[in-house]
């Protein structure tokens, strides 16, 4: 039981040192994170993923998306999440990095 509560949350760290504590179930929408947490890696033991390519601002929006996805996973007619136009290119890159693209591997 204690282990469960420990594994319930993940810590995601951006390249400028911002830490985001995320519900593990929500973050697992990303196949990239799912792969990092597969057993033998350090990330799986510490529940802490560091992303040296991603800045805090972008990671915040990505974490936003994780929870947006988690809240709406079984709903219909989901309203679109607002994305500021100035971040769209960085988020396209982040979507590519976290494998949040449509196609195989995209969790439904």
């Amino acid at each position: 039981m204690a282990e469960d509560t420990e594994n319930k949350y993940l810590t995601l760290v951006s390249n400028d040192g911002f830490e985001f504590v995320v519900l593990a179930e929500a973050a697992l929408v990303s196949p990239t994170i799912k792969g990092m947490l597969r057993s033998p890696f350090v990330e799986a033991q510490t529940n802490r993923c560091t992303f040296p390519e991603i800045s805090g601002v972008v990671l915040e929006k990505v974490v936003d998306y994780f929870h947006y996805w988690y809240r709406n996973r079984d709903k219909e007619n989901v309203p679109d999440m607002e994305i500021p136009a100035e971040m769209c290119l960085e988020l396209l890159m982040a979507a590519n990095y976290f494998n949040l693209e449509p196609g195989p591997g995209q969790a439904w």
Partner: protein
Amino acid sequence: MDEPTLPEIPAGRMAATRKRARDIAPPPEHSSTSSDPAVFSSDDDPALDNYQGHTRRKRRYVGAWFDQHPASSDSAFEDDSSPRFLQPRRVRGPHAQQPGQKREFKRHLDSGVWMGTDGSLTDSDDVFELEPATAKLPLPPPQLPPLIPLPPARPRLTPGELEVQSMIRQCVENGTERVDLSGLDLETISDGLLDPISDIEPIPNVAKDVEFEKRDPRLQVFLFNNRLRSFPASLFNAEHLTVLSLRANQLTTIPPAIGKLKNLEALNVAQNYLNYLPGELLHLLHKGKLRSFNFQPNRFWKPDTASFPPTMPGAPEKYELLTFGNPSAADRQPGWMGLTTKLRFRSPVQFSDGARNTYSAFKLPPVSRHPQEPAREGDDNVEVELEPFTQVAMPKEVTRELSSARLPTSLMAAPRGARSLFELALRACATSAQADRIAGWLREDAAEFPWPAHLAPAVERAVETHREGGLWCSVCGRETLLPLAQWLEFRHVRLQYVMEGVESDVAELGQEPVPFLRVGCSWKCVPAKVEAEGEEKEEGKEEE
């Protein structure tokens, strides 16, 4: 208030002059120390005399005419700390000033105006000889580098487009609902050139005993006999368009946004290079007001019926029921006449991802090229593979995903959950004001910055789709920018009328069934699968 008294004036000095003795006491202190304007008329007004003194006191003022105030002291006492009032002195005799002699001018720092020195007679002979101020060299204009590169100048309109512009302006002014732009040899129509069409308002009939009625315009736009290569997207904003003719142009596709033209009654797209029609036209045909629809000849893809097993009887009807639901009886009153379609065949589904990699065995044929470009072989006669309505072939990646998510493969699952972050970001790109530049940056910076290779084409396509008016999923109806599932439905277009509840065809327009492209926004948005009769029974058993 007691006035401060001044020392006695030396008697000798007073006696030496013939002038009357004057009270040279300074005016009350408060009048010169306070900068506030006078509140009461008796307070401070320099025009008022102080009659308290026994002797007459000469009023003395210093300052410019607009800023005059009583002198606080007399120059006779040589008090240097206070402003000095220069008393004009008249010189008589040999030292009198000669007429024509110039006065010297010097600047009085306290008053701010130029005043004559002593000895001046009148102001009438003033001749100012002021030294002209040396002209300062003007500062060089600031040479700032432009911070933001200027947007490219608006492309010059071609003579044909200028003519279009003036014709539309004339129609707007006269309230003409018929806009005839045919035979102008137009190749492209710039963005926004046709926008004023939606401003056309019919001139209401104003006559005696006729009730004023504001009616919606019934716009008719004729663009036939031009050389248009793309559908003018600005027409989609003209909500009241009823007649649109694009006959004899060089169109290869019709954007799906044509579904926005809900009032369209007649559409002519004959004599173009179309390979398929957008699925959104089905909404206009089934539920819209479209009465006249000309689409032949075109380069439509043909169904490959030779290698196709005969379909189960009744399957197309079941498919239509699953896809569109029951046709509402209210729309089909007796006497109703309009266009409908009858489904014949369906192609397999092409599954692709954001990078437009195709995962299914079936691929849509390439869209035919523009007539100016060299034609490929067999462009005129493309046959499309078909699939029975009882199955939907899925690539193994999709079935694996579906099974892991425990989703039924038989139904068009209602799309659940959020869109992918990629699609959300792509939409933000395409709808931003700088959409065109973003795509350009992605291409230019590819050498310096290793963007994922599929990003630039994905953004370009999304921008293009957005400019053409958008794309809607034909299964769930959501707006999308990524067609992830695409299939063709071959349909006969029929003119139909309803008489006393009996439907009957009048005529089938064209011998060949026409392909309609249907688009799904996710891999779950696929065509309905009609259960074969045997399977239905088996499922029934399972349920028991």
